[in-house]
C-alpha cells in the first residue's frame, strides 16, 4: 500500500492480520469492534492523519469489503474526512 492510494482489500486483510500475527488469508470477513479500532489506527499511522468518520461509515466497516469501500471514499476525499 502506498500513501497515495487507498488501501485495498488485501491491504486491509494484512492490517487486520497484524493485530495478532495470523496469516492474512485466515482473517475473518467480519470485523468486530476491537479490530475496527485497530484498522482505523493502522490507517491513521500509515497515512499520518486522523480520520473523521460518521456513524454510517463506521456502520459499513463491519466487513472487510465494507471497510475497503469506506476507506476508498474517505482517502479519495481527504479534506472532508481527515484532520491533521
Amino acid at each position, binding site marked *: 500500500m502506498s500513501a497515495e492510494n487507498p488501501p485495498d482489500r488485501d491491504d486491509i486483510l494484512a492490517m487486520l492480520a497484524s493485530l*495478532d500475527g495470523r496469516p492474512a488469508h485466515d482473517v475473518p470477513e467480519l470485523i468486530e469492534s*476491537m479490530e475496527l479500532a485497530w484498522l*482505523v*489506527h493502522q490507517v491513521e*499511522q500509515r497515512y*499520518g492523519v*486522523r480520520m473523521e*468518520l460518521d*456513524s454510517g461509515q*463506521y456502520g459499513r466497516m463491519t466487513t472487510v469489503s465494507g471497510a475497503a469501500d469506506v476507506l476508498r471514499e474517505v482517502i479519495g476525499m481527504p479534506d472532508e474526512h481527515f484532520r491533521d
Partner: protein
Amino acid sequence: MTKGLASTGFALATSPEWVDEILLRGAGDEVCLHSGGPIDRAALRRMVAHRQARLAEAGLRAGGSLALRLPPSTAYVANLLAGWRIGAQVSLLDHRLTAFEVDLALRRLAPQVVVEPGRVTSGPLSAFAEVEEQVTARDGRPAATPHAVIQFSSGSTGPSKVIGRTAADLVAEVERYTRIDGVPLPGERIVVLASMVHVLGLVGALLYGLHAGVQIRPPDRLTGDSVLDAVAAEPTPATVLGVPFHIGLLASVVDPPTLPQLKRMTTGGEAVPAATAAAFTGKYGVPLGNMWGMTEVGVIATDLFGEHRPALTPAPGLAVVERDGELLVSRPESPYVGLSDPDRWADGWLRTRDAGTVDPATGLVTVKGRLDSQVSVGGLKVDLTEVEATLAELPGVVAAVVLHDDVITAYAQLDAPATAASVQAALATRLAAYKRPRRLHVLDALPRTTTGKLVRDRSVLRQAVAR
C-alpha cells in the same frame, strides 16, 4: 446503618455515605474527570445529585435495585454514584449485550429501575460515549442481598454466575490499591482505556482515581494517537491503564512524540506476550506494569514495574495459594449470589480457575492460563460453553463444537433449511458480538468418537473442514 430502607430490602453493608466519604470528597475545583472537557468535583457532585433526583423520581429508594446498561460515559459514572448514594444495589450490564441477553439478565435480576442509552451521539471508537440516558421504572424487586454492585461472569457450566460485592469490599479494594507501589499518585492522571463497567476500569481507574485524587482521563478515541494526545494534554504524570490490545496500539505508533508525562502503562485481563512487552518498553522507555484480578475479587496481584514478568506479587491483604495446580485467593465470603457452590468457594478460599504456581521462597505468583473453557477477547471474558450451548440450542443445529483456535471458532452440523447465514443471524440476536464465533464451519457431520461423543480436537476438526 442505612436509614429508610425498603422493608423487604437488605441494608447495605456500609451506609451510602461511603460514596461521599471515599469517592466524592475533595476540593470542589479539583478536576477529577475529563470527558470532552474538565469536570471538577463540584460539577461531578452536581451531576450525581441530578441523577439521584431522577432515580428517586423513578421510585428508587435505599435497599432498592437499579440496573445500568450504559457504555462508559459521564452518564454511567453519575448514575452509578447516584444509585449507590441512594443506598440502592446497582447491577452493571455490558452495553454490548444483545437485547436477548439483557432480557435474560433483567428477568433474573428484576431491578426496579433501569437506565439505558436513549441516544448515543459518539462514534464506536470513543473511549467515553456521549449518551442521553433513559430511565425506566419496572415492576422489580428490591435488593435481595447486601451487595452494592452486581456483575455477571460468563458461566462455564450453565447460566452466567451472578457476582456480588459489598460497598465494604469495594472500599477494601480501593484501599488495597493505595498500598500497592507503583499506582498513580494524587495529582497525577490515569488515561483509562479499560472499560469502567468491568472491574479493572471500575475500581482500578474510577473508584481509586476518585478516592486518591487522580484525574481520570479517557482519550477521545481508542487509537494510538488519541491515547498519546491524552497523555500529552497536561503536564502532570500519566499512567495508561488498559488491556494487552492497547499495548499493541501504542507499540505500533510511528515515531511517537517524546512524552515526559508518560509514567507507566499497566494492563490486566490476559497475559502479555514477551515480544509485545519488549516492543512497548523499547519504544517508550517506561515500565509496563502487569495486573491479575477477577470480577469476584478485583485486583489480586501486580507487577507494576514489570520487574518479574510474568510473575506477580500478591496485593496487600490478600493471600494466594496453589492447590493441585490451581491458584486460590483468600476471600472471606462467597462472591456468588444465590449459589452455594463449594466447588468455587469454600472456607474462605476462592478457586480462581487459573492454573499457576506460587514460589515458596518469594511468594511470587505466576498465572499459567485457564483451567476451564473461559477465554479472553480483548480483555473481556467469554466462556466457550455458553457460546456452544447457545449455538446448539438454535433451530436447525444438530450438533455444535466451539473452541478457541486463535479466534472463537464454531463447527456445526445443520439440518435444512438452516444455513451458515441463518445460524449467524440467529446468534447475532442472542450473543454479544465479542462472544460470537469469528469463524463458523458447517460440516455434513461433526467428527465423533466410537462412543458417539463429539470430537473437540482442533486438528481433527480442521481436517474435517479441509476434506
